[in-house]
């Protein structure tokens, strides 16, 4: 079948698309946009996150035919001609990129967060990035990068170098070694354990297992 859609603002057409093919395959293999990464193919890792009609989705879980007539924006479509998107810039400056494989998905997810919530708290950042796995960074630098992008957006940290900015406030290096407990407060924290790998303890962080209900803190309806 033929699929016609808009990708990064430009019309795109692909022919001979197999019905069971994913949007991710369409983007990478047919439209020459390999920025969105193919990792888990089951919606677990978020590396293929793209905007579909303005909402972040896993491109591996969308059938190519489902984007007929719709607008897709990939990580390639975030930067301007000569200037990086603020989130991309902040990821570089904060050292949030290591192997880089998860980065495109995280950039899109973080970009979506900052469009909706200009000054997100830690819990909001963690919840927004909960669907993106990174096996290198331990997430701390990624969260720093989102804070940096948010601060620059609001102009508060426009002139401050990234390293200096990081050494203050909630992103202190000392916080990295504390497994979980210190950061699990406030509404939204319950659904925000994006940093499951930070202590290497996997599922055994205090408060994560056993009778800690995800619904406890997440709804805001209590």
């Amino acid at each position, binding site marked *: 079948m033929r699929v016609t859609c808009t990708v990064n603002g430009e019309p795109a057409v692909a022919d001979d698309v197999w019905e069971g093919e994913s949007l991710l395959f369409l983007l990478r293999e047919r439209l020459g946009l390999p920025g969105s990464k193919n990792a888990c193919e089951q919606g677990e890792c978020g590396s293929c996150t793209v905007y579909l009609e303005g909402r972040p989705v896993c491109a591996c879980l969308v059938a190519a035919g489902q984007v007929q007539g719709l607008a897709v924006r990939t990580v390639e479509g975030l930067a301007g001609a000569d200037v990086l998107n603020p989130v991309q810039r902040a990821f570089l400056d904060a050292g949030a990129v290591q192997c880089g494989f998860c980065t495109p998905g995280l950039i899109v997810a973080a970009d979506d967060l900052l469009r909706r919530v200009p000054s997100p708290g830690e819990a909001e950042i963690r919840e927004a990035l909960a669907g993106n796995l990174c096996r290198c960074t331990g997430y701390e630098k990624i969260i720093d990068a989102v804070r940096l992008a948010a601060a620059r957006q609001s102009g508060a940290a426009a002139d401050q170098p990234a390293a200096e900015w990081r050494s203050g406030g909630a992103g202190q290096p000392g916080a990295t070694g504390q497994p979980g407990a210190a950061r699990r407060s406030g509404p939204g924290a319950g659904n925000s354990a994006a940093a499951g790998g930070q202590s290497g303890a996997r599922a055994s962080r205090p408060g994560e297992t056993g009778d800690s*209900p995800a619904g406890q803190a997440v709804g805001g*309806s209590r």
Partner: protein
Amino acid sequence: MVDINFDRVRPPALLDLTGISELAGWSCDGGVIRLGAGVPYARVIDELGGRLPGLALASRTVGSPQIRHRGTVGGNLGSASPAGDAHPPLLADEAVVETESVRGTRRIPIREFFTGVKRSTLAPDELIAAVHIRQAPGPQQFAKVGVRNAMVIAVCSFAIALDPGRGRVGTGFGSAAPTPRPATGAEEFLAAELAERGLWESRGPLAAATVQRFGELVASAAEPIDDVRGTAAYRRHSLAILARRTLTWAWQSYREEGRRCA
């Protein structure tokens, strides 16, 4: 889509329902929400948190933001997994599933919908069109146990809905029996306790023994198994805790509501 990606299935045809606008919206008529089967969790959270707090809480624990933009309550019902996050609040709210086929429309009470592990009364040629849920008549809560707080299938989950006007208590639990289930014994026990002690009217504190017994009755309604996510004993134990906690939160809301109105 995961099964297709991994070449586990090759369906002869795929039908995309996302473009059907009748499935993609919700409406409210006479205090009942008709939630189209294609409304994603993200919209349930954003648009229906006030009217359907139990379902919105459960929706918030589904997958990740990316998944919540695509996944729907209708899809959850179609899969009929015992672990489906939407099912406990739907059971607690006594929702009604609306299906369509060439034979017409059926309305299936949720408590008759699930028939086995990933099986339901849905006929092969039937489509889930919507689910009808009464606008919350009282406090609702949901809680779920998982190894992370995101991107997890429930080890077990529990929902409670209080209906002070009718003097009823609704419950539902997931991942602790072949199907999602209500804990009817616990519902009847608590409703009777609240009525006998005049607590609906007085909004007085719940006795510790009442809360304890409620948890025990919920756990005794479970028929869990040992599997990769947890043991049967752990599920039973944690279900009792979730039941006690959610009841405590819901009752606390009910009491605070009373104070605000007074």
